[in-house]
């Protein structure tokens, strides 16, 4: 996988192969990045916008990619930053910087989202996740849904493994409490 990525990066930096290499990159990472973004921004239309912006940034910045990290780590970092800035902009533009209002809106969108077909437990779980602070939500999603190693997460989020473990622990505790209060689990 790593060798393939190196070859892909070389092709991406070669003007004559750039377009074809980018198509390969898209088909390799579009789904992973989409689901990563979708879980952060919840709504499909928003996830679509953020995904497109992520790949445009990748296209514009690929020549400056210094290969100090894995390609997928770099892509995840861009997608994560794009998702967080999207949520921050949304909060400032529509909810005058209020975290609570943004959370309520995410939960409401989820209930009316035609692209969400989860059962009651999944809906409650998503509501509980939506109530977490953005960074805890990010850590929880990466660990719980993507089963990512703390080492990889630390590289993407540029933080220590200890901090990530603590963050995941707090997130799990809050979600369990929410589920218990809503009679989902005993």
């Amino acid at each position, binding site marked *: *996988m790593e060798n393939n990525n190196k070859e892909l990066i070389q092709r991406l930096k070669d003007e004559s192969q750039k377009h074809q290499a*980018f*198509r390969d990159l*898209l*088909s*390799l990472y*579009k*789904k*992973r990045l*989409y*689901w990563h973004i*979708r*879980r952060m921004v919840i709504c*499909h239309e928003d996830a*679509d916008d953020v*995904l*497109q912006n992520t*790949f*445009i940034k990748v*296209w*514009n910045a690929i020549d400056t990619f210094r290969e100090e990290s894995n390609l997928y780590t770099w892509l995840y970092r861009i997608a994560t930053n794009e998702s967080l800035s999207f949520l921050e902009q949304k909060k400032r533009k529509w909810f005058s910087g209020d975290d609570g209002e943004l959370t309520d809106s995410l939960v409401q969108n989820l209930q009316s989202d035609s*692209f*969400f*077909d*989860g*059962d009651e437990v*999944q*809906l409650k779980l*998503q509501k509980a996740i939506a109530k977490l602070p953005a960074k805890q939500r990010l850590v929880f999603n990466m660990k719980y*849904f*993507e*089963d990512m190693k703390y080492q990889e997460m630390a590289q993407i989020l540029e933080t220590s493994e200890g901090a990530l473990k603590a963050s995941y622990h707090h997130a799990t505790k809050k979600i369990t409490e929410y589920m218990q209060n809503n009679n989902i689990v005993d």
Partner: protein
Amino acid sequence: MKDIHDIQRKMQADSGFKTPDNYFESIEGEIEARIQECDAQKNGSLSIVRALKPVLALAACFLLGIVLFKYPASLIDKYAQNNAEQELNYMIEEAYFEDEIKLLSLFALQNEQFVEEVAFNANSLKEDELLSTVIVDINDVEILAHLLDN
């Protein structure tokens, strides 16, 4: 590293989210179209600058021609002469003001000497003499007459 498709299946299965039909098939085309748009905009703005360069150079030459035609060399000479006269007048005025300032400075120096003399006389007076001068009951008419005499 886990198989990428396993992760994708797990991610979709657990979260309850779904996408519109054929979304992942169409998204590549949309992204490529947006990238082409961005590249075209970049190239477009560059080519506009390139295309405008000779036009701007021509416009600058044209403007220079108009300026030279409207304000021929003789007028420019006249303007320069007027400027020289104005400058001379200014220099004369400046010299006049410099003299004024010197006079004022001399007056200030003289005044300083006067103030120093007064201060010296006041210090040389004895305390008793000062008190007696202050205590003496002099009415306003006497003070006025004294001043008029001096």
